[in-house]
């Protein structure tokens, strides 16, 4: 039996893992999203509405919210096609802040006062979702679709010339990422049993990106490593008391300087999996 403290940390890791995967999927097509906390917020509010007000069971509510957020992701994904690199990142940042601001004004769901009444869920349930989606992403990485996504990532024009459809692939990735972020949000809402718009701000989006970049942005399980690191590191730095965030910043910069591809990359992953490094 694990203690309540560790159970809480594990739950945070699972929720962060889903958010990180949502960024990872979109990043795989070469698009950096700094607005995934927006999708997470949509998922959190929608599942909470469905379970508390409508009375839908949690699993169904999560699936519905993921579908709805996926549709929003498609709507966001199309205009995003026009932007690249840092400008796309800034636009998605704007989207995230708009969603936060929307919920701040959305009095039906409590506005700035937040929303509560959700039933608490177990760590096991969170991890069932997190592991399920992680396995889904790892399977996706072995499929033809993933090769197409990498092709679009490396050179969009060339990918289009060999007969791929970059539009479908990029918008599809956005949509899938948005759905995964919504699940993360739904689980977050039912783990903390209280949500407020401030939970889904810029810092949250940055956390997702950090988990992916620290863990390794070229392999799916990198997000797992990054999520553990991001949640546990500040805990282990607790002996530094007031200075632990600064220490975390120092470690982050050091990490980027020494190993910018993240802890887990393709060759390390293969070595760990007892396969020949390519």
């Amino acid at each position, binding site marked *: 039996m694990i203690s309540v403290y560790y159970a809480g940390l594990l739950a945070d890791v699972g929720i962060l893992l889903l958010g990180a995967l949502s960024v990872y999927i979109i990043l795989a097509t070469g698009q950096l999203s700094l607005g995934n906390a927006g999708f997470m917020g949509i998922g959190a509010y929608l599942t909470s509405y469905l379970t508390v007000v409508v009375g839908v069971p949690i699993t169904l509510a999560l699936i519905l919210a993921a579908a709805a957020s996926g549709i929003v992701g498609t709507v966001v994904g199309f205009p995003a096609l026009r932007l690249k690199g840092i400008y796309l990142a*800034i*636009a998605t940042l704007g989207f995230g802040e708009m969603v936060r601001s929307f919920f701040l004004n959305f009095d039906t769901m409590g506005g700035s006062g937040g929303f509560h009444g959700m039933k608490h869920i177990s760590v096991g349930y969170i991890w069932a979702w997190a592991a399920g989606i992680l396995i889904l992403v790892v399977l996706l990485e072995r499929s033809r679709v993933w090769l197409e996504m990498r092709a679009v990532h490396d050179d969009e024009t060339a990918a289009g010339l060999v007969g791929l459809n970059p539009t479908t692939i990029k918008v599809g990735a956005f949509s899938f990422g948005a759905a995964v972020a919504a699940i993360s949000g739904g689980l977050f809402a039912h783990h903390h049993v209280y949500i407020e718009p401030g939970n889904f701000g810029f810092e949250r989006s940055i956390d997702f990106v*950090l988990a992916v970049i620290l863990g390794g942005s070229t392999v799916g399980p990198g997000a797992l490593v990054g999520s553990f690191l991001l949640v546990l590191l500040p805990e282990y730095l607790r002996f530094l008391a007031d200075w632990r965030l600064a220490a975390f910043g120092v470690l982050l910069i050091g990490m980027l300087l020494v190993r910018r591809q993240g802890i887990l990359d393709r060759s390390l992953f293969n070595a760990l999996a007892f396969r020949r490094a390519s």
Partner: protein
Amino acid sequence: MLLQQLVNGLTLGAVYTLIALSFSLVMGILGVLNLAIAELFMLGGFFGFAVIAAQLPLPLAILAGMVGAALVAVIVEKIGYQPLRDAPVVTPMLSTLGFSIIFQNVATNIWGSDPLQLTDEVLATRFTLGPVSISAMQITVLGATVMLVALLAFVVQRTSIGRALRAVAENRDVARLLGVSADRVTLLAFMLSGALAGAAGVLIGLHYAAITPYIGVEIGLKAIAVMVIGGTTRIWGALVAGPLIGIAEVMTVAYGGSQVRDFVVYGFMIVILLLRPQGILGGSGADQGQRV
């Protein structure tokens, strides 16, 4: 009432303009989003407050904010940007974010998380011009902004340093072939942008008569929106976009409720990015190359 809101909006817009220029200097020249600027701005405010608390004159406080923030910007450039110059854009962005985390934490530990208040009323005299009441502080903020922007314009347009900056912004490799030291220009861009952010920090501290370690994020994000709306390749776009957003924000607070303002600002930014990605003042054609 309307005129009064215009004046208040202009004051806020002036500060946005300075920070947006600060972001835009680094972004326009290096194509990097330096997230540490938000915290340089906060640090500049604290440096300025320290000088004001020591009963020294106001111009000295602004100078202290500028010099202090510019020196901190050197650290950011040397450690957070220079070694990562050839990495994808995300990497230097995250390393500057690492610096923001450090700066915010250090500021919280040194000055505490409660807002630092200006003890005595600095520049509280108000002048009444017809229906408009403007405080000496607002005049100071506006005046200082105009002076700083004029100074920046002079440096960028009329000096050899400015020519080097513009050359590197145009084409880094060609500029280097022609004998411009790109590394020095990069450092200079960071310092100039740090100095602007520092000055803005002192000014916003005066505007609110208080400063907290958390002021950077909110205003910094807003300044990024201002930069985008103005256009990133022409740094002067911020001169139009800053007051525009400042006024729009004050107007929405006055007539639409304070909560809607972020929605309006970021919505406007996205519309601009999609419909006119070169920004309000940006030219057509060549300017679009980088971003679309």
